[in-house]
């Protein structure tokens, strides 16, 4: 297992030899902030390209292929275009809430993003209630969306935001319950601990049937949580123009766009953490040679590849299933996923008590 803490420890030591302790900590916090900002922005740009290319592949198109080699610079051009668009000042809006909404959306995704385990020694916020903290902060995003829709003073945005609120709030239950199911198996809520528990075998193999059910429910709920795929009715373009961000222009709109793609990454990152071991390489108990070979691949690569593969599945959903109606959406959550999830929790408890897991 590669350990990245030697790099950070080296930086820490050299900073402490140059300046007093408090200044060193401040500089390190600044470094963490700049690093977060860079990774956040670059990942969003990559995801825009990734999704457009995949959508094109699913529809037998080419996708972006003119700007740069294979269209790789397309999302940079998009971002620049968004920056030079005019930010229109509207007349009848609630100005304070209208300006506040993008902050809430971005803060929610940034805090959740900082909890993800990127590698050994590469996790930023490491609370002992990590996964609970992640659920808590990611639900701040709903507030931002509701505020955006309400303050815009437009009927499209109001309906879009209410739909989004009802949907995200309902599916949060399923996410919470599948996380509880996995926390039962892990016996800890800290992200570090969950990763460490999977050192011999990933949870999806360890918890077999209940873990697989929890994984499927988590993926469905996660897709709904990011307002994507078959659950994109908050921004159903044929009925609501663009949903809750109709009135936002230029870079203001860009923040919602950014947060949406980052939420896709966060949902797949958490799925990778809970079911596929976070940055932990693929290990099987007893296969020492195999495990040693897998350890040569760095944890960062494992985590990113898992997250990208799971995002691929979520993007795939979008082009496979037709959009649901709101009553179907709520029925799916409250009458199917929630009872199955409660039953699955009991099943997991039985599996743990009878020691039937690997």
């Amino acid at each position, binding site marked *: 297992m590669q350990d990245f803490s030697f790099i950070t420890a080296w930086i820490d030591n050299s900073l402490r030899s140059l300046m007093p302790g408090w200044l060193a900590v401040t500089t390190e916090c600044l470094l963490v902030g700049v690093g977060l900002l860079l990774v956040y922005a670059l990942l969003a740009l990559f995801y825009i390209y990734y999704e457009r290319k995949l959508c094109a592949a699913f529809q037998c198109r080419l996708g972006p292929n003119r700007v740069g080699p294979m269209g790789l610079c397309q999302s940079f051009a998009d971002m620049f275009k968004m920056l030079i668009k005019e930010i229109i000042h509207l007349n009848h809006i609630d100005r304070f809430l209208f300006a506040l909404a993008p902050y809430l959306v971005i803060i929610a995704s940034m805090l959740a993003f900082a909890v993800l385990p990127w590698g050994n020694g590469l996790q930023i916020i490491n609370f002992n209630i990590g996964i609970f903290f992640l659920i808590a902060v990611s639900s701040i995003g709903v507030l931002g969306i509701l505020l955006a829709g309400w303050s815009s003073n437009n009927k499209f945005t109001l309906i879009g935001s209410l739909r989004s609120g009802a949907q995200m709030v309902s599916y949060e239950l399923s996410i919470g319950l599948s996380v509880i199911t996995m926390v039962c198996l892990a016996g800890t809520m800290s992200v570090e601990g969950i990763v460490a528990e999977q050192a011999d075998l990933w949870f999806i193999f360890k918890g077999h049937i209940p873990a697989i059910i929890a994984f499927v429910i988590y993926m469905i709920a996660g897709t709904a949580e990011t307002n994507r795929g078959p659950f994109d009715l908050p921004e159903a373009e044929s009925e609501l123009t663009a949903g809750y961000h109709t009135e936002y222009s230029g870079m203001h709109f860009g923040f919602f766009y950014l947060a949406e793609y980052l939420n896709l990454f966060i949902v797949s990152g958490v799925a990778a953490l809970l079911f596929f071991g976070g940055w932990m390489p693929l290990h099987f108990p007893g296969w020492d040679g195999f495990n040693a070979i897998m350890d040569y691949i760095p944890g960062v690569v494992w985590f990113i590849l898992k997250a990208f593969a799971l995002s691929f599945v979520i993007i795939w959903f979008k082009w496979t299933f037709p959009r649901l109606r709101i009553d179907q959406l709520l029925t799916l959550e409250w009458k199917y996923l929630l*009872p199955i999830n409660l039953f699955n929790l009991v099943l997991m408890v039985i599996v743990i008590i009878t020691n039937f897991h690997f």
Partner: protein
Amino acid sequence: MITTAIFGIENNGLLGITALLTGVALVALALWIAKLISPSSFNPQKGEAYECGIPTRGESMSQFKVGYYLFAILFLMFDVETVFLFPWAVRMRELGVDGLLCIAVFFGILVLGLVYAWRKGALEWK
């Protein structure tokens, strides 16, 4: 060997505040750059709501369907109950049979609540 504290900073609150401020900085910085380089021109039509061209009739920040409200209340109930399940889930193995019996009663009440809401028709979208 698993090490996670980045830069050896043990104070997670500090790192959390750093992440929060990074989020604020991202929005503020990008908006500032956008304000600097984007054009702006005045036209009274631009300030109107995005609709089909004629001014909106009536109040837009109006009453909305009560169904959303019902689901919000149901969510509140179940979410608070999930919060109570978390501490038990962490200590499940240590609490043993006693904890299991207690949580079974709690879980039964939770399921009864869902059944009640279902039978009352609160889960129908009308």
